[in-house]
Structures are given as structure tokens and as C-alpha cells.
């Protein structure tokens, strides 16, 4: 975005094929967005002051500004609350746009490092965020060491890993799928 100290976005770099790619990745209503801003007024990302909040992401996506969107990590800050989807008057499903941008980013390995950690955790333990260091406290409270989820169910986890290996993860995972 910044080039030679001048803060101008050059639309000449806009790429229509990126818009088409996003449409294919689930953001199929993207172009209908009229930038009314209803999503931005409810989005926790916007309220938290993230620079690229939902409305801005959709507009950049609509213009085909691939580099700007993929270089910025804002899409990964989405909390998936789906408030935007509930309020959007044009039925754009803004959350789907975020997901589409994420999918496009993953394809070219343009995501923040911690997303890969989350992905690895998801594959290994069945949770993107793996609760560690609570074993003792759980025991004290009379609970089993591990919660009764995928973490403590070896058989289910294996099945889940098998499912994941049949997805695009097989191609893009930057860690061994063993």
C-alpha cells in the first residue's frame, strides 16, 4: 500500500480475476454490496479498531485488490460472530467474503504464522485452540484431565484426521500429515 512514502492505492493493480476467484470460493454475492456500512457498525473488528474491517475488506475484494488484502492480516481477526450476516440488507453474507479471502490466502500461503499453528493443532488434537496447562486444575475440580472432546477420543480423532487428509489440506499443509 505504501510506495515511496505516498499513501495511495493504485487501482491499476486491481485484478478482476481475484474477484472471480473469491466468487468461486463462496463470496458469490460480493458484487452486490452497496457499501451501506451496516456490517461495519456491528462488526467487533471495526469496533476494536482494526484497520481493515468488514466493509473495507468487501470493497477491496470487489475492486480486486489482491495484494492489499493478502498482505494485511485483518481477515484473520474475524471472530466469526456472523452479526454481519444477520444484518446485511443485501444478503452479501459478509462473513463468507472473509472466509473466501482466507481461502485465497491459504492457497498462496499468505497467512499469519499462528494460523498454521492453529491448523496443526486442529489436525493433531481436533481443536484449533488447544487448551493446555489446565490438567491439574481440572483434576482438583474432580474432572477428567482432558475434556470429553476430540482430545480425549483417540478413535474419533483418527477418523477426523482421515477426513482432513482428503481435503485440500493434503496439498497445502506446511507440516506433515502423519
Amino acid at each position, binding site marked *: 500500500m505504501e510506495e515511496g512514502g505516498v499513501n495511495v*492505492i493504485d487501482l491499476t493493480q486491481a485484478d478482476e480475476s481475484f474477484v472471480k476467484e473469491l466468487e468461486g470460493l463462496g463470496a458469490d454475492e460480493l458484487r*452486490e454490496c452497496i457499501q451501506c456500512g451496516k456490517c461495519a457498525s456491528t462488526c467487533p473488528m471495526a469496533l476494536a479498531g482494526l484497520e481493515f474491517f468488514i466493509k473495507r475488506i468487501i470493497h477491496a475484494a470487489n475492486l480486486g485488490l489482491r495484494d492489499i488484502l493478502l498482505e494485511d492480516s485483518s481477515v484473520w481477526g474475524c471472530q466469526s460472530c456472523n452479526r454481519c450476516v444477520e444484518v446485511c440488507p443485501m444478503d452479501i453474507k459478509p462473513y463468507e467474503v472473509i472466509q473466501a479471502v482466507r481461502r485465497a490466502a491459504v492457497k498462496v500461503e499468505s497467512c499469519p504464522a499462528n494460523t498454521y499453528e492453529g491448523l496443526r493443532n486442529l489436525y493433531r488434537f481436533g481443536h484449533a485452540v488447544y487448551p493446555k496447562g489446565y490438567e491439574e486444575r481440572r483434576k482438583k475440580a474432580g474432572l477428567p484431565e482432558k475434556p470429553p472432546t476430540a482430545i480425549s477420543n483417540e478413535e474419533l480423532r483418527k477418523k477426523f484426521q482421515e477426513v482432513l487428509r482428503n481435503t485440500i489440506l493434503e496439498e497445502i499443509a506446511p507440516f506433515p500429515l502423519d
Partner: protein
Amino acid sequence: MGLNQRRAAYIEYPQAVPKKAVIDEPNCLYFKSMKKTGKPACEICKKGIPPKGIQGCPADAIKFDDKDEYINLKVGAVIIATGFKPMSKVHFKEYSPHCPDVITSMEFERILSATGPTGGELKRPSDGTKPKTIAMISCVGSRDERYHRYCSKVCCMYMLKHARILKEKYPDIKLYLFFIDVRTAGKDFEEFYVYTRELGAKIIRGGRVSAVDVKPNGKLRVRGFDVDLCSPVEVDADLVVLATAIEPPDGVDELGRMFSATCGREGFLREVHTKLYPVETSARGVFIAGCVQGPKDIPESIAQSRAAAAATAALIIPGKIKFEAIVSEVDRDKCSSCGVCVPLCPYSAIRIEEYKGKEKAYIEPALCAGCGVCASACPSRAIKFNGFTTEQIMAQIDALTEA
């Protein structure tokens, strides 16, 4: 529009009414040679070229001796519908108006038209190549204190129309539409806007373009602001289309004066009341329709012209006119014939005419609007303003002060 050349005998445009050919006298070889040598150098349109088997006008409709003429008509009412004038691009130095690839929307309309100078083919005026990136700029001369404060109303929609035509015909063209904001009030207009977005036209809002610069490679760099991106933006375009303002036509102020119809501050003819008398002017029997009253689109112009036609019919068909009771009247025995009242009347209702062998003022009650200017100005107190005579006003004051 200067986009291409036409012959000296032409039909103004295919939808012209009446669709008749005319001769461009200053450029016609017949007239040129007749002026110089007295002998005709060309009469092909009339006689054809018999040796080559080319026929002249089969209807024998060519009249070289035809002259412009004034036709006097006596009418009961007039509807003024002169239309508008699109603003020229020359005023906007920041948009490089000298560049042939910076054009107005009206010129672009011609380029897109199948009967236009390029036969409907999309070409840059400078080198005839097909533009790959087009930028359109709205509000050029509108919503601008330096030129016109008003919104020209139709630009947003015709920009979207142009975008739609382009995107349907050439889906690969990159199209950037710079708006201050997009105004799509009207039946089906918002749907049209969303459909145009779906076609892939890029809408940049809050983006009044600050500059269009010609780059050494012939591209036009357009600089604006994108409020949705929260960032200044720029784009290299091959063609820039300026949606210039709708202006009142030349001479409309003079025409208005001729009919005693007043112009508003922006130069359009003024209606008596925006809501209740939208086609009437301050002059009785003079009506307005279309863009001479203010910027408007085709459906609105048609609705207004039909309203004007109905108002005209209501006035003239009965064959009688009802006078207002509140009009001024001259007591001709008191009138000193000073003539002060005549130029003062905003409705041209007062004339001097002979009465008992002397020149006296006469107020035409059909024209008088009852404003009272003449009555207050008459030095001889010879004008009685019915409904507001001195006695009546004094009686009102007495009644009010009694309590």
C-alpha cells in the same frame, strides 16, 4: 459535436423531428460558387449525375431559393420547452480538457451510439484504439459553488447506463465510476444500480476526482479518494468521461423576459409554485416543461409536458377566461398619462391607449396578477387595487385598533 464530419446536406440525427434533410449553406458548393462566380458548381442533390446513372432527389424537394422565415401566430397559450445545454469540459483545467481522450458524457453517448461517429464502435478519439480502462467522473460542474450549486439529477443514472452498456458489450473492460455519492432515487433505479455493480463496474464513492493528468505514454492518470477504502486512489485510464452539468439553454433569460416569465438564480425558468403550480409561470398563459424548468430525466420531462398540455387545454378550450377579482383598475378620468405604471408591471398587463381623445393607461384584467405595484406607484392615485382600496384598508386598521 465535432467528433466527425458531416456533409453539406444532412439530417440532423436519425431520431430528428421532423426527419428532414437540410442544406448547410456556408459549406454547400452550390451556394459557395454562386456567391463567388454566379454559376453553380454542384447541383448533384437536385439533378444527380445522369451520365453515371445517379438520380437526383426523386421527390424534387431541393429548393435552393428557400429562405428562413418568421411565421407570426396568434395563440392563446405558450409552452416553453427549450431543453438544456450540456456544460462544456473547457472549464475544468484539473481534468486536462485539452486531451481528446477526456470527453463529456454527451460525446461518449455519441461514441456508444450505433448511428454515432464511430458507428457504435468503441474507440479513443485520439488514436482510434479500443480503451481497456475507462474512468467516469460525476458531478463535473454540479454541486460546485464555482459553477452550479444544484445537482444535475440525471448524471448518476446515465453513468450507470453507460457502464451497463459497456459491460454488457465488452465484459473485459475495466470501468471505474467516481461518485461523490450515488443518487438513484426513482422507480427501478436502485435495482439498475445493483445490477450494474453485478456486471463488474467498480464504484468509487466519496471520490470527487482531484486531477486527471496526461502521462507521457498517453494514459490518463485519475486521482481520487475512495471513502470505502479510506484511502486516496489513482488509476491509469485510457479514456475519461466527464458527467458535466445540465445547464439552462443559451438565451433562456431573454426568452423568459419576452414572455414575462422569471428565471431562478440558477438560470432556469421558474414555476409559480414547486408543488402546487409546477408548470405555470408568473405570466398567465405561459407554461414550462422539461429541463428549461430545471434538470430532470425523460420520464419526468414527459410527465411535466403532459401536465403543461393539460393546463394549456384547460385554459384555452372553454374559449373564455375567468378574471381574478383582485386586480387593479385605472380610473381613466384621473390618469395623467405619466406612464410610470407601464414599465413597472411585472406581467406586461398595462398599456397606454386612447380614451376620450387622450392617451390613458389601461390594465388588461386577463393579464393582471393582482400584485398591486401599479396602484402604489401611481402619482395621481388613479389606480384602484380591487380588494385593497384605501377605504378598505383604513376600515381594516380601524377594526384592528378598536379593540
